[in-house]
């Protein structure tokens, strides 16, 4: 399994992650029909970059978006409150 950014294509669960289970792998390998939302988001990519992407490329991208959308559901299963801020701090700049 690759190190670095295995979620970019989104259809391959990261083996190094606790999220990656045999069930998840099987699910990805079976490649169900992408959701309507995935198709809509992929259409946005096609409208912008369609002149350089083949039909196969767009199918791969659609599957990748679909896989990522399914994974992203876990982002919303963990509870957060209004006070949970993003883990970065903006610092105002003042030059010399």
């Amino acid at each position, binding site marked *: *399994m*690759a*190190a*670095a*950014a*295995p*979620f*970019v*294509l*989104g259809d*391959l*669960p*990261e*083996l*190094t*992650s*606790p*999220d*990656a*289970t*045999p069930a998840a*792998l099987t699910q990805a390998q079976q490649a169900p029909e992408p959701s309507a939302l995935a198709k809509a*988001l*992929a259409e*946005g*990519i096609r409208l912008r*970059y369609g002149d*350089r*992407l083949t039909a196969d*490329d767009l199918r*791969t*991208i659609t599957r*990748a*978006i679909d896989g*990522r959308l399914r*994974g*992203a559901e*876990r*982002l*919303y*299963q*963990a509870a*957060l409150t209004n006070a*949970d*801020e*993003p*883990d*970065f701090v903006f*610092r105002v700049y003042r030059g010399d």
Partner: protein
Amino acid sequence: MPDDLSFASVAELGRRLRARKVSATELATHFLDRLESLGPTFGAVVTVTRGRALSEAAAADREIARGRWRGPLHGIPYGVKDLLAAEGYPTSWGAAPYENQLFAADATVVARLKAAGAVLVAKLAMVELAGGMGYNQANASFTGPGRTPWNPDYWSGGSSSGPGAAVAAGLVPFAIGSETSGSIVTPAAYSGVTGLRPTYGLVSRHGAMALSWTMDKLGPMGRSAEDCALVLAAIAGKDPEDPSSVDRKFFVPPLRRAERGSGGEVRPRRKLRIGILKNADQGIQAEVAKNFRDALGVLKDVITVTENVELPDLPYGVVGGTIIAVEGASAFDDLVDSGRVAQLTAPEDRIGGYAALAIPARDYVRALRLRRPMGKALDALLKQFDAIATPTRGTVASPIDKPFRDAWPGVTGGANIIGPANVVGVPSISVPNGFGVQNLPTGLCFTARAFEEGTLVQLGRLYQSRTDWHKQRPPVTA
């Protein structure tokens, strides 16, 4: 020039330099010649920096002759992953579109190593864009796949493939790699060397290619934990040019006389507490699991083990994946938007960047918000132990000619801490702990709380003073 120099430790090379048994110029020439003759065999090198190396080595020789000693790296040759800027040479990021890219100044890490008297001999190969476009095969660099010197039909790991292969083959005494999620410890394991991924912010990223501003780390890869500690001490610390760098230094943990056993083995003043993740050795290759348990057995007199430790149930994988994908898409926005991404080597890398453009801002910010409670939860776990131990990877290296997903069918991966540790930015060390399928090396990984690199080095010392896996040499002939 005796070939025992090729695999000597930094400390041993330093002793020879101080005793005037070898000069910095002779050392540099020795490794430059090996890089040129053997580097292509392992896909390890992008650029041999001969002119700069001989100039830096001559300067080191002049200083040493005058009695000025800068420290343990003075006169020692090294290589950097080709995502670090070095004045006078291209910095390719492993990618054809950037093959001739030049920067006017050294990266902070390169500048600090120069200040320590080290001699840059090579820009080393890497997976294109540090894997940011989602590669799924070893052949994902314009210089070709990195090959482990233990068997060149297999990968040296990524994305620091050149540093792993070059250290393992005795082409450099140490190297600097980078890790966003696995890119130091993986090639360390696959190449049979020691890799130390520092806490996020301990080492300046200034002058390094950005894949993920909030997850990228730079760290040493070398022959031993001791060597990695010597290098980390030279490169750690606050850098005004990198706002994420922290105002902390790293000091090599002292080794007191009382800690040395009669057989040379290191004995800690107290037993170290080690947690083992539940299922850490399940669902992985049998040889990897055996080497892991054997390694713990080697340490049984100096550690106490708690089995079945469970990570807090949080979505580390999707949080890390979302952050890397979005930050990577932004970092390489011009590459994707211009269409030059089509020049990348791996076919999947040519289209991987487009899917990331469809990730909503809501998901990215959510991932960043989850990161704080995730960090607190993991810290609460880690502080119960000196370190968590895992096999570095569940398998040995993948064959060069197969996609990763087809490399080792049936291996589901076990429980691994690489993803969670990288998301929250805590450090790990990987040390060689034996050989598995096809006589390929395996790794033992320790992960600790933020800024506990000293503990990791101590654990590496304990293990490496009792074993000689880190002294094994691959069948490499110049």
